[in-house]
């Protein structure tokens, strides 16, 4: 018996959505256009299977590309079939791999307490250390090899292990250097018990391919595997899926749109769908109905994308569910004299048209530089505007301290983290820690930095309001999942010292500048991580998941947001402004260089396709005659969409 929620969710599906949601076994490819309700299809199908098999212990694996998508789907499924959460792993490829390596990584010599490094600057410093280590003994390695990170990352995303790079690198000189640097970099990561994002996938692939027992284990536990946004999988991710599925297991449910591939540079490729077709021979279902955009925009999208050659044959054009959106649905602003004028006019337009609800407006552009221009113009008009981007670290002193404490408890000899803890503790309590003293004493006493610092802080802060939180740190950061209690205790302390009467009328109260935003982010992240990893989450798993997630806060409704097209993927907005619609920006200079029928140019077209289909109410396109002093022609896409007419020359 389906729950009421599930029954009504199913009732809301259209016939082709329903057909997809009712799919039981065997390979299926759902070609889902933008705004076609694919999330509903995925969640309904997962919920239906769980609901029909409540007495069965098997589980469903759902892999996504973003934590947000995974969290949204998990919440929906839990709402549709309460009580079956434990039979579901819905998470990103990276979360799934981190879990697999925590559980079984010891067979590859990976300790479950590994740290995930997501920032290139950290990885570059590992690489730099590796190169420094090699230089004295190597005849080919030099400082210039400290720039090899992108190549190493690329090799890893192609599943090329260090012993196999000779087979793929054609340039003999480069190859010679990579052959030495790549393994040294991996060794450096291993020395620090560290993994980068590409290692998560690569090592999990190694685990299941070296030990078929684990591949078998995963397909036994997860007889149903679903992949969202499949078009974005790179070689490594797809190979991992195939390795898990083995030769005979074919229960694969794929949701993809080859018109939305915009991660070609990261190894995504339209060929992936062709590979899928030949590897699994899936049944194909199309979801062409677009629920999101006004009919006018659907027309533009169809006009545009039909110019691409590298796409699924017989791909049905999008069908508008909404009627026409009226005169404002699509507008073209320009041509302006130059980009400054364009940015100014776009800003004026936003200010005039959306004076009360700037939060419903977004500005999209092919690159970040264009966004910066518009942001400046918006701010110049007194409007609040921010470029959305991943935030890797907390910024407010309270959360720098809390995150630091957790990291130091997990990695007790890390001097960098110790410094962050000392600095933020001074900001919060006014108590200075003697960093060098702590290090020296720890070494003399054979103690770890965490214990030593805590002792040091307790001695100096015994009478301050930090007394309790330090005592709790002492009690809760020993092991197990008690650390969550320490987190609660810290939050209580932060709340107390954040109260205005407790910072002596200092209005700015610098350490707490973004505290309340980050407090919300913290609470959300904690809930999401427990949802992914489980209530018994260990400190190491918590930190690993935290590292994989962005710490950016929920935008304020009074702020205009600016996104690169890549960052806007999977989202929808009421009012979209797409700026810089000229040749060399959109499509990009590099793509144009590759030729009109190059895969790169097609990717640009898909970028435009993705951008305009984010719109649920109005789309405003704009362009100018010159950028950075260079004259530019209107984008070919404007003509293809039919927004501009070709002039007969």
């Amino acid at each position, binding site marked *: 018996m389906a729950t009421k929620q599930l029954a009504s969710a199913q009732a809301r599906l259209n016939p082709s959505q329903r057909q997809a949601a009712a799919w039981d076994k065997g390979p299926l490819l759902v070609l889902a256009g933008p705004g076609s309700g694919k999330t509903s299809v995925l969640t309904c199908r997962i919920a239906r299977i769980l609901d029909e098999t409540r007495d*069965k212990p098997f589980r469903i694996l759902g892999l996504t590309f973003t934590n947000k998508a995974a969290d949204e789907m998990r919440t929906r499924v839990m709402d549709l079939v309460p009580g079956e959460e434990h039979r579901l792993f819905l998470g990103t490829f990276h979360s799934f791999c981190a879990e697999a390596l925590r559980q079984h990584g010891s067979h590859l010599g990976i300790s479950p307490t590994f740290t995930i490094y997501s920032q290139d600057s950290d990885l570059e410093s590992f690489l730099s250390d590796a190169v420094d280590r090699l230089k004295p003994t190597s005849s080919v390695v030099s400082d210039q090899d400290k720039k090899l990170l992108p190549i190493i990352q690329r090799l890893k995303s192609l599943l090329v292990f260090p012993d196999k790079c000779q087979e793929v690198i054609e340039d003999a000189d480069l190859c010679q250097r990579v052959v030495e640097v790549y393994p040294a970099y991996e060794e450096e990561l291993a020395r620090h018990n560290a993994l980068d994002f590409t290692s998560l996938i690569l090592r999990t692939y190694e685990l299941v391919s070296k030990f078929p027992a684990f591949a078998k284990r995963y397909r036994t536990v997860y007889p149903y595997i679903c992949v969202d946004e499949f078009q974005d999988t790179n070689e490594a991710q797809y190979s991992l899926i195939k390795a898990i599925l083995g030769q005979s297991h074919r229960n694969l449910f794929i949701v993809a749109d080859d018109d939305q591939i915009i991660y070609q540079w990261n190894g995504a490729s339209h060929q992936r769908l062709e590979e899928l077709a030949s590897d699994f021979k899936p049944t194909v279902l199309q979801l062409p109905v677009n629920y999101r955009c006004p009919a006018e925009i659907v027309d533009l999208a169809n006009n545009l994308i039909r110019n691409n050659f590298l796409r699924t044959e017989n791909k049905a054009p999008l069908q508008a569910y909404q009627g026409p959106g009226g005169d404002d649905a699509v507008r073209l602003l320009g041509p302006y004299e130059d980009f400054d004028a364009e940015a100014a006019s776009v800003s004026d337009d936003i200010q005039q048209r959306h004076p009360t609800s700037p939060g419903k407006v977004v500005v999209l552009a092919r690159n970040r530089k264009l966004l910066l221009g518009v942001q400046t113009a918006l701010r110049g008009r007194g409007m609040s505007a921010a470029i959305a981007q991943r935030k890797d670290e907390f910024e407010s002193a309270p959360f720098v301290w809390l995150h630091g404490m957790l990291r130091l408890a997990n990695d007790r000899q890390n001097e960098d983290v110790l410094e962050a803890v000392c600095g933020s503790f001074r900001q919060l309590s006014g108590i200075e820690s003697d960093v060098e003293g702590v290090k020296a004493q720890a070494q003399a006493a054979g103690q770890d930095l965490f214990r030593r610092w805590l002792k040091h802080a307790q001695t100096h802060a015994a009478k301050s309001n930090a007394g309790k939180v330090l005592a709790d740190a002492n009690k809760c950061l020993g092991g197990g999942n008690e650390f969550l209690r320490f987190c609660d205790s810290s939050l209580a302390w932060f709340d107390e010292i954040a109260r205005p009467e407790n910072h002596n009328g200092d209005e700015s109260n610098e350490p707490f500048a973004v505290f309340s935003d980050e407090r919300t982010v913290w609470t959300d992240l904690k809930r999401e991580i427990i949802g992914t990893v489980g209530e018994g989450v260990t400190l190491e798993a918590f930190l690993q998941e935290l590292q994989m997630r962005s710490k950016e806060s929920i935008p304020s409704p009074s702020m205009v947001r600016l996104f690169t097209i890549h960052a806007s993927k999977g989202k929808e907005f009421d009012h979209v402004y797409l700026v810089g619609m000229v040749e060399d920006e959109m499509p990009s200079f590099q793509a144009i260089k590759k030729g009109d029928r190059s895969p790169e140019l097609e990717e640009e077209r898909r970028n435009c396709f993705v951008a305009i289909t984010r719109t649920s109410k109005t789309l405003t396109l704009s362009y100018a005659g010159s950028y950075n002093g260079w004259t530019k022609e209107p984008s070919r896409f404007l003509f293809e969409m039919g927004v501009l007419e070709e002039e007969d020359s």
Partner: protein
Amino acid sequence: MKLREVIIRNFRNLVDVCIPIDNTTILVGENNTGKTAFLDALTQALPKTGYTRNNPFDEYDYHMAKKEDSPRTSSGIVIETWFREDRSDEWPEAIIQSLTEIIQTDPVRNLNSIGLRLTSRYDKDAGQFVAIREFLNTKGEPLGGKAAHPAIVTRFLEYVRLFYLSALRDSESEFSPKSQFWGRILRDLKIDDVKRKKLADELNKLNESLLTADPRLDKVRTSLERIQTVLPSGGKTTIQPLPLQPWDLMVKSQVVMRGKNAEVDFPLSRHGQGIQSLAVLFLFQAYVEVLLKPTFHADTEAILSLEEPEAHLHPQAIRALTATINDIAAQKIVSAHSPYVLQNVPITSIRLFRRIGNVTVVHYVKRSFSAKIPKVQGLIDYCKSNSSKYDYHETEELLTVRGSIDDKEYRKILPFYSTDKTAQASLKQLKEESQLYLSDDDITDLDTYAKRVRGEVFFARAWLLCEGQTEYLLLSYFAELLGTPLDRFGISIIDFQNNGSPAAFVALARNFNLPWLLVCDHDTAGLGYVESVKKLGVSPAEAADLLRPLAKKDDDLESFLVASGFLPELVTLLTSKGVTIAKKPGDSGYEAEVAGHLRNRKTEAGTDLIKQLRNAKANKSRVPSFFAKAIQDIIQKAT
């Protein structure tokens, strides 16, 4: 899912024991050696209902070595239960799916395992005793994440159900509606609605006719009806001799049996203890067959921990019972005091509990030996090409050998660690330990001969090994003469010639860590025995102390007796049997001839000699010093 190992620390006398578990495991040992403690520990480790924060232990459960110890200072009780696959893909798919968070995999041998640890200790911060259940990785470290969620303990326990039947199997309580098996069986009975209504109608009719059978009943009823005047409920008061619901009636069901040659059925509780005890066991079997899987999962398995199944039963019944226990579809852990129980179980399933001071040690026949040895490719390759005997676990860096490491193998392995002194020492120790290995043939022999005839030897504190029956009779008589009968010291005499080989018994004694001593002839056969035992890795000092051929070269028992002052009795014996001795006393070779005649009448000679000595009220001065010393020494080793 089979339980394959139990590790217990600081629980009563079980300070540090690690016990492998077979499909049927028999715990033997004297009283108060910790067998019941072991079963109790298991009951706590695998409770019926999953997650509880309550500490299941009381203050006397924490091992305390010294007077000043207290449960609060105890390092805490630890009980680990390990479930392991014996072969790849043994565990059903549903278990893998349901418990994947906690299943550890050896990816090379392709074997799965689950380890669950119950820890209880005093938590100073909380100011109370706390008990924690955690699943473990193969290194014994607790698992985090989803594996640490309390719900998974409950989920796991639905697949493994432990049932404990104590020595006191009281049929009255085991057959009550609230009991663990009978109650469940009754409650699970399904009667369809039509049938139930029909039964209820019939019960109603029966009630009415019972009420009218004696008019006084109705008077009582009328009187009770006055309750309504005080507390009006609007209903009618009736008396129901029989409950109206079939289920209420069913819970009052009882099992009745008719005895042999009797005419009346008696309720079970009126039968003897033996029958009652048996009935409870069969009830458990019925429960496992009928209800276990429907109640839990198709793949749920039962573990039966059973105390003294032999209580109140006669020997033949015990042997029959052992066969029955084997048939129960469950893993069985049985504590027993009866040699008869041991007669039908393999020797490898015996776990011998012994108490040293206030600490229990447990011994058993080891079928494999392991040691931590660092990973080197040479060893990995060696193990791969000798995989029937050697196994190397790369992740745990554990070398396991199923057999004894011989010198040739040792010389091949040792060079892999030419510079690693620690590894060399570990290997040496492993080689020595592995000499205890009993081959399959040894075990078959011991199973066939020793155990069937002499299950009691497993309850002994020490073994005195001798060649044949004559030695057996003489040794026990001499001990009596010395005023130290061997039974009093828990010493078993084992005549190995008829029951297998001496080496097998010595190996067994060493496996069980039982003190032993061997006496034999000083002839070719006897020296052969000595050599076969020395090969087990017995040190020269031990060999000199424990292997005792008769003093003089070429001595056998007969010539030894002739030379040890028993000539008159032996001649009398031969004469009474009509044997003519050709030589005269004093002639050269006279003694040798007597001994020769005796060799043809071995057993007779022993019994007759003892008879003559008894009649003559012989005293301890007649005991030859060789035997007196052997007897004194083994007594000393046993106590």
